[in-house]
């Protein structure tokens, strides 16, 4: 759904007066019908929500490696992600709805990334930024895991690192995706719907295979640290 702004032109004053009359209750009959036809747009609630959420993405402040520096550039003055409503970066995954995997994900980091993704509330989206998190990039070795292996990714941005413009293009593509058709089918195909964080005992009770979604990273998480 795209909101088209029409130039107001000289009609503006007349429209303002009509709106004032409407608020006063002075408009009646055909005038009122015309007013409603001009001003009221009908849509479904779902589409309105998609329009709103696509224009207010809250990315997670989560940097991994080189791409994180370029990711920081999109909030800076040249690109200014605030123009598209994603200037409110959130440090807590529970307040964010977009995770940008900016850099190489090592085997040690992968369970933590998955856990952070699971902690995000639906609806949530993931962008794999750069070659490393999409396909391991130049590091085709024992240490790096592509993001698709352990979490659902909505969009890949190629580059090593991608230019900030490329990431911005990716975010705008994601915006279009959210607005037009959030159900792309692949989530159902990969059972990537509604991933949530489960306690290990809970995950076992629900018959999860070990190491699958919801299994928090042992020894790498906050809860074990205090012990």
């Amino acid at each position: 759904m795209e909101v088209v702004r029409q130039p107001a032109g000289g009609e503006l004053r007349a429209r303002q007066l009509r709106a004032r009359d409407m608020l006063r209750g002075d408009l009646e009959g055909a005038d009122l019908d015309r007013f409603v036809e001009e001003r009221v747009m009908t849509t479904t609630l779902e589409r309105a929500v998609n329009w709103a959420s696509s224009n207010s993405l809250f990315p997670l402040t989560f940097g991994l490696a080189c791409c994180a520096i370029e990711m920081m550039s999109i909030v800076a003055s040249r690109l200014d992600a605030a123009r598209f409503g994603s200037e409110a970066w959130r440090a807590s995954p529970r307040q964010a709805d977009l995770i940008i995997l900016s850099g190489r994900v090592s085997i040690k980091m992968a369970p933590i990334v998955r856990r952070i993704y699971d902690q995000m509330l639906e609806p949530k989206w993931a962008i794999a930024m750069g070659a490393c998190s999409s396909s391991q990039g130049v590091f085709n070795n024992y240490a790096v895991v592509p993001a698709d292996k352990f979490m659902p990714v909505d969009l890949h941005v190629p580059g090593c690192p991608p230019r900030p413009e490329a990431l911005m293009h990716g975010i705008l593509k994601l915006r279009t995706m959210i607005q037009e058709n959030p159900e792309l089918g692949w989530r159902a195909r990969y059972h990537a719907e509604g991933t949530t964080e489960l306690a290990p005992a809970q995950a076992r009770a629900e018959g999860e295979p070990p190491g699958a979604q919801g299994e928090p990273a042992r020894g790498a998480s906050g809860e074990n640290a205090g012990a």
Partner: protein
Amino acid sequence: MSATSEYRRREQSITLSPLEDRADEHAADRPEQELLTLNMGPHHPATHGVLRLLVTLEGEVVRELEPIVGYLHTGIEKTCEDKAYWKVIPVIERMDYLAYYFNAMVFCGAVESLLDLEIPPRAQYLRVIHMELNRIMSHLVWLGTSALDLGAISMFWYCFRERESVLDLFEMSSGQRMHTRYFQVGGVIEDIPLGFAERVRAFCAAMPARVDQYEAILDRNEIVLQRLRQIGIVSERRLLELGVTGPLLRATGNPWDLRKAAPYCSYDHFDFKIPVGTVGDNYDRFRVRMAELRESTKIIEQALDGLPEGPFITNDRKVALPPRHELATSMEALIHHFKLVTEGLRVPPGEFYYPVESPRGELGCFVRSDGSAKPARVHVRDPSFVNLQAFPDMVRDGYIADMIATIAVLDPILGGVDR
């Protein structure tokens, strides 16, 4: 020390309400000292990457701290063993991702030393120009993100504005913003384009005034001063014991800088100063880096003034690719080109350690060659990794809020720490 500064005393002397007095009545029932172990990271915006810290707190005071690294381990050193010498450069560049020219420099320098190769003076000067631009860029990112951690968001916009103009220069000379692969074994990959020198000059002319503006924002800001001064002091002796180098060591007054101590890449041709601090607190570290921004612009201007004419890469056809036009006329050039592209250059057996002064300290690369076209071992001494050792000493018995300021000023790059 930090915990007893005048500011802290005043802060602690404030009593809020009678409620607190009543809380004190029950204080005797509670254990006197309860330690809390807090996990910070690996996902935490203040750790500048994926560093994980186990902090033992007594109230708000940090009693012990243990950094846990390895969350960004990429296996770069091992990958290097599997690549021909000239294909190692892009891999090793991605290590410390704010100092990519320095990463390329240490590796190329080590290989060139093993080859006993003479580098043309023009290539050396071009390397100096790019490395110093890189140092400015790295310090700008440090300044912007550190100020962000201290709560000054406007610094972030200013620093990233200047960073973009440095990256534009990199893009002009090499076509890439980051990880440019501009340095080549034997020189640089291409001569600078027309108009590059003028744009660098314009940048160098504007930069000192920008640094003045940054200082005008930060250096008279009471909050910044209170959060930096007398915080995180470690003695010079202790830093030397831990092997700390770079601005952290220079902040204590030790003028150790490899550009002066062991000049490489014709740094002895330039007239510049090594800024040092006196106390070794966070404020000195901040001031040393700010002064380095100014000194770097001076070096770049001198390098542009004295930029020698001549080849930008060595004429040794066993090491560097022949120019394109020779391929059409010379059979020999074609053979050299074929051998270099298919197999790469061969390096005589031996080992070498080549250090340079990166924005964070001594960055060194150890290369062992077994005579083949691939290195037998590549090891990198990364300053971020070594400097991080001093972090527990800096923050012990200080406030946890000061710990955030200290790690910002410490400037570890986790890509370099974990490699």
